[in-house]
């Protein structure tokens, strides 16, 4: 009997078979584990964050500044193939030998399922506990505006259907609400937001800093400002009253002569009182009292609604279209052929 060396052992076809069998065995044992129990928590979280583009240089997201000019909002879909390639790059770091690669290849599907479930758990709000489910299309927007730098902590909400009035409030656990996967300022004036799905309606709202009083400047015209008038008995804006009252629904704001930006409060009060529909005479004493004045000057956080303009509930308000920009003009199949280098 010939002496058997270590090499004989290692080169034995049975040994090689055991090794390649191990790759399959490990894949199967991982596939049998429930999603969420496969990868170590640290790895899972990091990969999910990477999937949501955390740490990816801004130039990789927006390769040319022209794509995101000053004072603009750009909606997008997240390219899953791109983020998958990103994750594959990260996974490739630990592979050295062919066996490593074969092993990783076998596990790839399980790892991807794991990250699909984890990416919903990166940003959990208010007891939300998403069950593992198939990965949805991710969409989102980039907002580059002074509104981002000047108003930290903007509120962003998205819904997958129309939810009624534009100024209506919806609770956190409202089913049509689309989960926000990431909401982060990438630069002082650039906000990135990712949604778990494709919303039909997006609200961007001024942060609530208590109750504020103020006026509305007319854009582009210096010194021209108005306040929307309200019926002090019902606190309803006159432009919401049915039927519309006669006369003005917004009062021009007068200023004190030769003074820097000082409102002529008395004259403004007179102008409010001149519109009978405000009912200031019917409440408390005749004329505008300080509570009535305060109600007229109230400024609520402004909410910008992006959605189907036909559904707008504020007459005359300029609504920015969201649907229009979401019409695909090139099919994905076409795109895929394009990616694969095929000519049309």
């Amino acid at each position, binding site marked *: 009997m010939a002496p*058997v060396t270590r090499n004989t052992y290692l080169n*034995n076809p049975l040994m090689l*078979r055991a090794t390649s*069998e*191990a790759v399959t065995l*490990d894949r199967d044992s991982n596939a049998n584990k429930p999603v969420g129990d496969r990868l170590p928590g640290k790895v899972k979280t*990091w990969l999910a964050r*990477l999937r949501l583009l955390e740490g*990816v240089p801004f130039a*990789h*997201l927006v390769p040319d500044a022209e*794509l*995101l000019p000053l*004072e603009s909002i750009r*909606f997008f*879909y997240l390219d899953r*193939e*791109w983020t*998958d*390639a*990103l994750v*594959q*790059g990260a996974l*490739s*770091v*630990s*592979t050295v030998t062919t066996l490593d690669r074969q092993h990783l290849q*076998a*596990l790839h*599907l399980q790892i991807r399922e794991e990250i699909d479930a984890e990416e919903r758990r990166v940003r959990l709000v208010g007891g939300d506990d998403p069950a593992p489910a198939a990965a949805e*299309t991710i969409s989102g927007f980039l907002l580059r505006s002074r509104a981002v730098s000047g108003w930290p902590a903007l509120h962003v909400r998205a819904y997958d259907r129309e939810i009624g009035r534009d100024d209506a409030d919806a609770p956190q656990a409202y089913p049509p609400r689309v989960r926000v996967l990431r909401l982060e300022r990438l630069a002082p004036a650039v906000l990135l937001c990712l949604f778990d799905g*494709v919303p039909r309606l997006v609200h961007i709202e001024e942060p609530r*800093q208590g*109750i*504020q*009083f103020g006026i*509305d*400047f007319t*854009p582009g015209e210096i*010194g021209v400002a108005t306040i929307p008038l309200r019926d002090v008995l019902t606190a309803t804006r006159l432009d919401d009253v049915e039927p519309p009252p006669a006369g003005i629904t917004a009062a*021009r704001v*007068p200023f*004190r*002569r030769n*003074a820097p930006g*000082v409102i002529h*409060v*008395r004259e403004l009060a007179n102008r409010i009182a001149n519109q009978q529909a405000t009912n200031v005479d019917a409440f408390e004493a005749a004329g505008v009292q*300080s509570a009535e004045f*305060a*109600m007229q*000057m109230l400024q609520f956080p*402004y909410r910008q609604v992006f959605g189907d303009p036909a559904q707008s509930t504020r007459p005359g308000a*300029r609504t920015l279209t969201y649907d229009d920009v979401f019409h*695909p*003009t090139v099919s*994905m199949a076409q*795109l895929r052929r*394009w990616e694969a*280098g095929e000519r049309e």
Partner: protein
Amino acid sequence: MAQRVAPGQFVLHSSAVPDLTAGTYVVHADQSFTAPDATSSTLDSYIEVTGPRYKLPPDQVLSTFPPNKSQGSFSSRLPQIVLKRRTLPWEREADPALAVGGVPSGVPWLALVVLADGECEFLNAKPIAQCVTPGVVLAGRNDTPVGDAIVVTETVVRKVFPTKEELRLLVHVREVDLTDTDLAMGDDDGWLAVVLSNRLPQQNVRYRACLISLEGQYNVLLDQAEVEPNPPAAFENPFVYDNPLFGIGLREIKENTRSTTVADGWSVGVTRGYDTRARNDRPWLPPPVDSGGGTGAIHDVDVDDIDPGDPLYTFPVLANWQFTCTDGADFQQLMLQLDVGMLDTVRLPPAGRVGRKPAPPRTRPLPEVTETGHISLSHVNRAGEADSVWYRGPLVPHPGGRQEPLFGVLPLLHSSDQARRIGPDGRENLSFAAAFEIGRLLALGEPSVVAAFLNWRKEGFEQARRTALVGTDGQLSLEEVRDIMSGFAARITSRILFELGRDGGIRFGDIRPPVDGGCPIDGLDNVDPVELIAIGFGLPIDTVRELIAPGVDRPGLGETPATRGPSDLVNLAGRTDVEFGHLRNTALDTVTTLATNALGGSAVPGGAPDALDELLSEGHR
């Protein structure tokens, strides 16, 4: 008080005027009798109603808007201060003459004034005698020996301070629900007083907002103001002062320093381009205070110099804070002017209009963007040649699909070159290759994550490989691959352990309970408790039985369930040795006897026929 306000709602009230304002009062009691000869005496009790005068208790300020030391676009918002005590703005009389017959007038004694740089001189922690305009005497008790104050010119009062008729309109009371943290902000009773300013901040100006006391100086305020016929004029100059002398001084300062804004010019204050008047005529005026670059203070320049000859007024400041108003546009305007589009939208330069200056030519061409979101970028290829390639980031204008598994295998890229593509126009498309590469670089920056992932992969693989090897072992030995048998014992052990441990170790049987039951104790367990009691108390057993349950037949004995596990196996083995000794001896004896008998040929004959004999005989038949 009934609950009136729901969370998320608030109620506005015009005022909360107390029945007595601050001051000293006499309660005069006088009785009169109708009975003849009755006498009565009067009683005078003195009471004093106190309230803040020069200084607000710090806990009285619930919030301010804009927040202290904040920067932001506040140009369409009126500054405000929210006070905890709802009666505070009415606790004093701005002018005693207003209160007719001792009834509080309801005119607030507090006003919120917002002053830009150079419009006031802020006095910090001065004796209260210096906190009011000289000549004004405030009777009654003072709440503090030192206070803050501002010195302003009459021009500032005329232009910025509220007028007498506006004063009431700027103060109101708000009632909120205490549980609404957004609105109540930690108040104790849900009633708040709000003081508004009448001045809109303007962009790129620092302001100091001061809650001032008008007590005794109500008549300094204008009765009424004129309306600006041309509203834009109110926003031409954010400052009160623009007189020539002032302007010259400012220009000189600006030329001599690096400052770029008017406000900066004030703070720097290195040169004075104009004559300082002798201050002898106003010996009471304190020297200018340097408040360390703060707003509203003019370094080396006092208010008196700005507008010589203008009367000066000093007002006590109960609370003050500073803020800077930055950009002009408000949130709504910014949102409405947003340029909306998908990510492949490139804004074309605005078309030139007749009569307008054409836009300057672009310094570089517009990027080449396809409808798929790909953009052409310049690139240096590996041969060192300048080239242009297609690139598309992860944010795309159209929804896309995703690589799905083919025959159960999800394709995996191993190097970025695998992801390079050629576009239809012959240019390379590096989108996914770049994604792969940036992912790789990001992972390299996280060694601990890579290590954890590698470890996870290694552990899983090693375990799987061990399992596979054990399954192959038998075949290996058939092939006479013998020397690896040196590891056989180790492998077989691991195989056995693996099999044993399968399915949660079900082969091991029940898991031993954490606590064993006790051993029965003689005299306590297996004893009739009645008997035990009888013995213990020295009573006849029948008596005890009758006492406990008359006329009932006793059931069985009480039992303590006792299970004993094999607690000490070595010991047990030893005991087995001893206890079964006799059995072994018996067996040995029997075998010896049988053997002796058999050898002696006396096994069958002579002995009584046994079962074996019967069986044999049956077999023979």
